[in-house]
């Protein structure tokens, strides 16, 4: 038992490396917030563009969405981080992580918003247009507000799942929680930082998971 405490809850190691882990939490929150904002806005924009039903554009959107839903994020991260510098485009690890995860979230969010838009009955479009609203006004003031309400639970769950991928940043040197924990673990030769890192993630994400659970019952599909 003593050995266990020494390896996983070592007070000396905690004192020394806790600031690093806390700093990692700040970086994780920064990337996560940036990804959530750009990813969801990007998805909403794509879904809105798709409702214009311009054939060539929609083929492109569907293609993009399919590709970003099919590829593992780590594969795209490695291509962007190790590949792009060879063609003269060096992006920082932070930028690569943000860009890739935003694109992935945008792809999933587009699908969810589009399902929401499709679920609004045709009569809503017709009624809004007949009151003199133009297409964009109808989309913005009548269709999207109803569609978005229904997409809250699936979108929340998907957003949480994708935001957790910020841990992949450790592979390309983004100083987020996991990276800080691994570095501290190898410097200290002790597993305590890994436990601290896990606890940091739990502190960050348990509230979000709980809110997601609550939203799921509050905005259940089809009740809107």
């Amino acid at each position, binding site marked *: 038992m003593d050995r266990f405490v020494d390896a996983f809850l070592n007070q000396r190691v905690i004192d020394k490396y806790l600031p690093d882990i806390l700093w990692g939490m700040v970086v994780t929150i920064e990337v996560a917030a940036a990804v959530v904002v750009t990813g969801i806005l990007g998805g909403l924009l794509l879904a809105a563009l798709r409702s214009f039903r311009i054939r060539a554009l929609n083929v492109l959107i569907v293609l993009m969405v399919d590709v970003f839903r099919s590829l593992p994020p780590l594969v795209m991260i490695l291509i962007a981080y190790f590949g792009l510098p060879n063609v003269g485009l060096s992006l920082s690890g932070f930028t690569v992580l943000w860009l890739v995860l935003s694109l992935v979230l945008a792809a999933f969010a587009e699908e969810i918003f589009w399902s929401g838009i499709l679920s609004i009955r045709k009569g809503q479009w017709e009624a809004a247009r007949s009151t003199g609203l133009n297409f964009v006004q109808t989309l913005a003031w009548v269709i999207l507000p109803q569609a978005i309400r229904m997409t809250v639970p699936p979108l929340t769950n998907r957003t949480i799942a994708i935001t957790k991928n910020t841990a992949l940043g450790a592979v390309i040197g983004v100083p987020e929680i996991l990276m800080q924990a691994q570095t501290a673990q190898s410097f200290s030769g002790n597993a305590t930082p890994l436990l601290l890192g896990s606890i940091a993630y739990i502190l960050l994400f*348990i509230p979000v998971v709980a809110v997601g659970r609550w939203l799921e019952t509050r905005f259940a599909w089809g009740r809107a």
Partner: protein
Amino acid sequence: MELFVDQFLNFEIMHQALPLLLRGLGMTLQLCLVVVPLGLAGGLAVALICRSRWRAVRWPAFVLIDFFRAVPPLVLLIFIYAGLPFAGIRPSPFVAVCVAFLLNTSAYYGEIYRAGIASIGRGQWEAARSTGLNSFQTLAWVVIPQAVRNVLPDLISNTVEVVKLTSIASVVAMPELLYSADMARSLTYNPSPIVAAAAIYLALLWPCVRLLSRMEHRVGR
């Protein structure tokens, strides 16, 4: 443009790396054949435990589900692979990946089954029991088959996520598809092998994603 093709779509290098990539693909498929059934079975167990009559059984199950949904799978994997040796347990990369995936995916599959079972009305239970089936038979032959059908899109979608997730095994030096591709990249100083690996993932998963998006939009309408 030529530089781009040379760097990302260099067929010569892709061709050289192909045997390595195929071996990696074999490993990825093997891994999927282990972790997907494990997750499906673990998830079902979790969903049934969550329906237990006793609160002392139900509560810890819910806490564990939320716990494993809050920890990123890569963190769990690193903890098992790099942390447990300090407690005297030394899992091989394969075992570490399987354990991490079992814990993570059971939580996700469990939530899906739970929603499915909840979608089956009381009448189905009562009708099945009144024909003389016991409660285990009711669950196995009446409730679960209908529940699975109701949440099939979610089950497929989660399975696609699990297959994609196997790529993180590369971080603990397990020679699956992405690891092999990255090794070929560092040997050739050219990212084309990873692009080839991406193409393989795409070929595997695109049909599933297409199918899913059709299913989802039908449900949405």
